[in-house]
């Protein structure tokens, strides 16, 4: 077996959003002006923190229950969100930490800086975490977040979304993104979504309704697959794991 990946494939910065996307106002004062300096990966980039399954509690991935009182549950449409983490070479990525956070079903975050007039839900915190299994799969149980207004411009609204933070095996793979919901009419109106240059990129962040995983009389399900950077090594150097 191969010890360490030598290099990650360089990041496609035409596919990733540009730093400065003026329609998303906050980028104007926060986007670096100079392009980033490229250098070949060293161990500092190809290694990264490792998280163990034993740090995950039984309700950590269940946002319906994990903040609720013992007889309570979060208010809102009950959903499962699940998917698989692969790398660019199609290999499944087991054992990596995924953290999510989201607004409640009324569009309000449990955060002291969120002053939106929609109510908090006493039974909803909005945070979850899990670690991918041997097949790279993960699942969260939650409620569908609501859309909410934000001060980017007059009458600006975020589409419903769930924030995802994903670790890989190397620090260079570290990724934060957002998951959107199929069919949401706010997606094309959102300057954060539209920071992406390619409709295919928006499509990749749009979770699909998954009726095969939905549970009758209980909850709907959405599928959201995640792709992390892959190494330059060929798939033959490791056991093929795609299926």
């Amino acid at each position, binding site marked *: 077996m191969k010890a360490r990946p030598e290099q990650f494939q360089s990041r496609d910065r035409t596919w990733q959003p540009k730093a400065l996307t003026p329609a998303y106002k906050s980028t104007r*004062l*926060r986007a670096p002006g100079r392009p980033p300096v490229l250098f070949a990966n060293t161990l500092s980039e190809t290694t990264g923190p*490792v998280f163990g399954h034993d740090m995950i509690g039984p309700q950590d991935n269940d946002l319906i229950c994990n903040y609720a009182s013992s007889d309570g549950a979060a208010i809102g449409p009950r959903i499962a969100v699940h998917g698989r983490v692969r790398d660019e070479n199609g290999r499944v990525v087991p054992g990596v930490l995924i953290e999510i956070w989201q607004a409640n079903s009324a569009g309000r975050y449990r955060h002291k800086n969120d002053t939106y007039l929609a109510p908090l839900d006493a039974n909803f915190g*909005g945070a979850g975490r899990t670690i991918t299994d041997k097949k790279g799969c993960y699942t969260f149980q939650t409620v569908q977040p609501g859309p909410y207004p934000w001060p980017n411009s007059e009458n600006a609204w975020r589409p419903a979304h769930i924030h995802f933070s994903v670790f890989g095996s190397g620090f260079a793979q570290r990724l934060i993104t957002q998951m959107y919901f199929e069919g949401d009419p706010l997606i094309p109106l959102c300057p954060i979504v539209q920071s992406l240059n390619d409709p295919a990129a928006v499509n990749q962040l749009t979770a699909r309704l998954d009726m095969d995983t939905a549970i009758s009389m209980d909850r709907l399900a959405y599928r959201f697959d995640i792709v992390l950077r892959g190494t330059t090594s060929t798939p033959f150097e490791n056991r093929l794991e795609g299926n």
Partner: protein
Amino acid sequence: MGTKLRLRESPSQTAGPYVHIGCVPNTCGVGRPFMTDLGAVMLGDKTPGERIAVEGQIFDGAGDVLKDALIEVWQADHAGQYATATAGQPGVFSGWGRQATDLDTGRFRFETIKPGCVQCADGRLQAPHISFWIVARGINLGLNTRMYFSDEAQANAKCPVFLQVEEQFRPTLTAERNGDVYIFDIYLQGAKETVFFDI
């Protein structure tokens, strides 16, 4: 067999202003069920190496301090080795830390040890450094940079990565020492703009 399946990396989106809920829930009033924040404590009592702290602020193009950013650091141990220990266990040095910039002051602080020199694939030594990853509202794709140490001028002058940065910009990566504290301020724009890396 033999066909290379090429997928595209998931596109990044900003962490937004409420990144604390998911990553450092105890800083914003969520807590439950995560009673400790991952990466909050990097050291144990027995971690070998010189105890240091790294402090700083992140400035935007108007000179204002970011009070809603999240920083992760990744570093080698005192001997220049990357830990294989599982992160998130109390008392174990994993080399990984995570802190929000303070919601009121924008300051961040990591209590850690000074890392050793990490070897490159060709055997050359990199100067001691700490890798930084910064996300926040208004940052569409996480920013990578490195902190070098002002009191390691000799090692810095030979570091294959440090030398790839134009000389005039190298001071933006070099933290000044003040007692046991290294000050590493990060500038997103302007004359003092920090060098960011495409890793």
